[in-house]
């Protein structure tokens, strides 16, 4: 029953792969996004997985998803609602019903929509679509399990056939989007090169999934997305955690220093440690330590010994590291602390994303303990932000806290492999042989207040540092009251001075608008898309998004005072808004706060902005 295919030409499309956490939906999604990126689409992806590694089969708590948006033009987010949903069981359909557009295509494995499956997902009736109110969606009910079994009858057992369901679905999606299978076959061959039997099975079901769509479901609308004209160069797919790891490696190369990471496994930051521990050919030293405190303390030791030293963690781990960050502050040694924020407090929702560690990063230490705070904007921006965090730490002899979040850490997009010639050198303030006679450990460069770095092993510069207050001049321990005040102010001034070394804040959109939207960190994509939509509707809006949080760029106050209405948008109860109020006398912005552990919904942001403009 081959019919003429209805092809929808679209600027962008949102696809969601969903199933049990053991169903391989992340793999199917990743392969499809890599394939689309390779064909020249803009891509942003976001995995949404449960905290349980394998929750009970077919239950609502075990649903794992992978969402992506493909586009012909610049894409900022994985999208709000899906045009296409692949639901491997009733639980996946139920959990994702709220994320569907009205006329979306829903692909299901009808073999896993039997009475028992429906019961496990707490459906009351035998018609899940009606029960969820999904009356206008286009359903592709394929007997995926049966087809996999019969297609693999001669070469694989039932278990393997069941494991291949994700690839059958992938084949079906490739048909839906007119994707050639050659690239998928190449990607699968790489993935399963050590398991030829699994590869053979997967290649067969991939083809039969594609054929099934082609032969049986030609009446469903299929999609065509134009490719974008991207900047020339070589591209790869990268998520935020990998980009963070690469940014740190790049900084170590620019500084001519070995890279050391001390870390402890914690969701969602562990991938940084895993990526760096695999990069031994680049000389990276990684210690998986006994706890979070040892993670930072080994890094502090490595920094003292002259490495570019880093520790990576998430919110609860940052809390454990507080005392040691204070040591790096008072000892004035370079250190990068990466905090991949997750929903808190306490253990909170480890796999969900938030921006709730800002106050902790800024203030969560004893004493007057200023540290530099940066926040990465997007998966690929993690590279630049990590690079700049390391540059500031090394050149200003200070701990730098880099905030990313679970959303950008796991989200991925196509990334142009950077030309390192476009990045500045990193020059730590080493002692020089000529200084030897007069040098003291806390002697500072008068221009920026930075002390010089004498690395153990250097002849003639033996010295002692530590967590005790020290004399401004001699660096020897001191409890003199006036000296302490002077040192407190000196350390603060050193951090404040960094404002002169960072780029000025820029404003996007309509500079002459009445409304200024302010964001920071990982919400850049959602805010950019929302602002663009507001402007497309003919309204004026200005937008500024912060990467440098402490210190703020020098022109921050000038920008913020220019607009009649200001809205600070963040995924917490107003930590950045409160910080700006404290920094800028009399400044009192409006706030939009959501703390759901989920990315913003662009359409909701658009509504909020339009409402404010109309007021």
């Amino acid at each position, binding site marked *: 029953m081959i019919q003429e295919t209805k092809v929808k030409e679209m600027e962008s499309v949102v696809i969601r792969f969903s199933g049990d956490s053991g169903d391989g939906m992340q793999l199917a999604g990743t392969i499809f996004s890599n394939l689309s990126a390779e064909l020249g689409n803009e891509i942003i992806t976001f995995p949404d997985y449960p905290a349980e590694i394998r929750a009970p089969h077919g239950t609502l708590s075990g649903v794992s998803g992978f969402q992506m948006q493909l586009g012909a033009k610049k894409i900022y987010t994985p999208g709000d609602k899906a045009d296409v949903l692949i639901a491997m069981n009733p639980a996946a359909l139920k959990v994702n019903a709220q994320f569907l557009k009205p006329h979306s295509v829903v692909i299901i494995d009808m073999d896993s929509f039997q009475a028992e499956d429906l019961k496990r997902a707490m459906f009351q009736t035998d018609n899940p679509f009606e029960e969820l109110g999904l009356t206008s969606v286009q359903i592709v009910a394929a007997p995926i399990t049966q087809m996999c079994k019969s297609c693999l009858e001669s070469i694989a057992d039932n278990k393997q056939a069941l494991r291949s369901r994700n690839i059958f679905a992938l084949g079906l999606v490739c048909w839906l989007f007119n994707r050639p299978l050659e690239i998928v076959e190449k990607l699968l061959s790489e993935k399963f090169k050590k398991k030829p039997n699994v590869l053979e099975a997967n290649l067969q079901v991939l083809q039969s999934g594609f054929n099934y769509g082609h032969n049986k479901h030609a009446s469903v609308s299929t999609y065509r997305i134009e490719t974008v004209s991207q900047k020339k160069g070589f591209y790869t797919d990268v998520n935020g955690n990998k980009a963070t790891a690469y940014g740190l490696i*790049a900084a170590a*190369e620019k500084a001519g220093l070995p890279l050391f990471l001390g870390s402890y496994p914690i969701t969602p930051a562990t991938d940084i440690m895993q990526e760096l521990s695999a990069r031994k050919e680049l000389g990276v030293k990684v210690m998986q330590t006994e706890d979070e405190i040892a993670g930072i303390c080994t890094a502090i030791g*490595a920094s003292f010994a*002259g490495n570019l030293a880093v520790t990576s963690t998430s919110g609860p781990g940052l809390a454990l590291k507080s005392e040691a960050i204070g040591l790096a502050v008072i000892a004035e040694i370079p250190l990068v602390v990466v905090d991949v924020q997750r929903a808190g407090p306490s253990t909170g929702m480890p796999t969900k994303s938030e921006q709730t560690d800002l106050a902790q990063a800024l203030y969560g230490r004893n004493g007057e303990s200023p540290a530099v705070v940066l926040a990465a904007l997007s998966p690929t921006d993690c590279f630049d932000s990590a690079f700049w965090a390391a540059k500031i730490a090394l050149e200003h002899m200070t701990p730098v806290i880099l905030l990313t979040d679970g959303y950008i850490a796991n989200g991925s997009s196509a990334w*142009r492999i950077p030309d390192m010639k476009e990045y500045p050198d990193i020059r730590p303030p080493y002692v020089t042989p000529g200084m030897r006679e007069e040098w003291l450990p806390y002697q500072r460069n008068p221009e920026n207040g930075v002390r010089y770095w004498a690395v*153990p092993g250097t002849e003639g510069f033996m010295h*002692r540092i530590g967590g005790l207050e020290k004399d401004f001049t001699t660096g020897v321990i001191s409890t003199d009251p006036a000296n302490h005040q002077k040192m407190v102010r000196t350390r603060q001034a050193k951090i404040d001075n960094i404002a002169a070394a960072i780029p000025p804040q820029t404003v996007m959109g309509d500079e002459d608008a009445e409304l200024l939207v302010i964001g920071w960190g990982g919400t850049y994509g959602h805010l950019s898309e929302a602002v663009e939509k507001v402007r497309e509707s003919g309204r004026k809006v200005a937008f500024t998004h912060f990467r440098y949080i402490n210190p703020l760029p020098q022109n921050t106050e000038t920008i913020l005072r220019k607009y009649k209405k200001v809205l600070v948008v963040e995924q917490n109860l107003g930590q950045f808004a409160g910080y700006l109020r404290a920094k800028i006398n009399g400044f009192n912005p409006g706030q939009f706060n959501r703390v759901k552990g989920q990315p913003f919904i662009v359409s909701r942001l658009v509504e909020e902005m339009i409402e404010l403009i109309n007021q």
Partner: protein
Amino acid sequence: MIYQANDFKSPQLVRWCPGCGDYGVLSSLHKAMAQLEVAPHDVAVVSGIGCSSRLPYYMNTYGFHTIHGRGAAVATGVKVANPRLSVWLATGDGDCLAIGGNHFIHAVRRNIDLNILLMNNKIYGLTKGQYSPTSARGFVSKSSPFGTIEDPFRPAELTIGARGRFFARTIDTDVKNSQNILVAAAKHKGTSVVEVLLNCVIFNDGIHDGITARENRPDRTIFLRHGEKMIYGKDNNKGIVQEGFSLKAVTIGEGGYSPEDVLVHDATTADPSLHLRLALMDGNELPVALGVIREVEAPTYDCEMEDQINRVKAKNAARTLNEFLMSGDVWEVK
């Protein structure tokens, strides 16, 4: 000698209480470093918090006085970052075995090449007299006015339990033997733990006297030397023998014991069971063991890390981030 003990003394005034056992350790360390012929700029002395952790300030080397309990972790980072440095950790019973217990056992387990000076005075001195994890059950202190109700750690047991390869014990005032033991600890590749029985004149004066006082020492301690018979005593006529699974102190020539029955100390056997029994001798029935009790060779973490990096480099041509990225899954936009 290339360097004198004085080359390792920093100009800073030493500020421990007069009579503190830490002076003896400092002096032994200055002498040991001169004997080791290591350059002061190639030495890093790290410490945590407490009286003993002030030691780095008095060394004319690189020094880092860190935070409570974390010295072992910081020292680990120093050694991994630059394995060519001679790295020392000055720590006390509270710093090392209470707040820093986790870092201590894991440093020992990893067998990273650190020299740990564990100054054990069984008290918190800098906070003015609370019981520590090595204080005996029933010990009365400011925070245990009715006596403690918990058993202490025995540092040797903890070290060997964490698979320690080097354990030695010495007395703060015995500078000559301490110096030799510190030299042995430094030469040992891997984590070396040296427990110093140390006196706190202010808050725990005389805590080790039963063992360390001049008049008690000959009969209540035994100095173990690898390859030598375990003989001790005022008259050098006592010996340690093995009976069944236990050790026993005997007088040679009495009860049918001859010198042939006395055990010969072998510090290098990998099996820790005899070392543990020797290290746990408590000065009552059996004398407290001093000297190098255990010294076993094993791969060190710092060398293994460098070796592993070199092995991976030999198999992989990428040396820059760009070379690595280009060798992966990339596509070109022209």
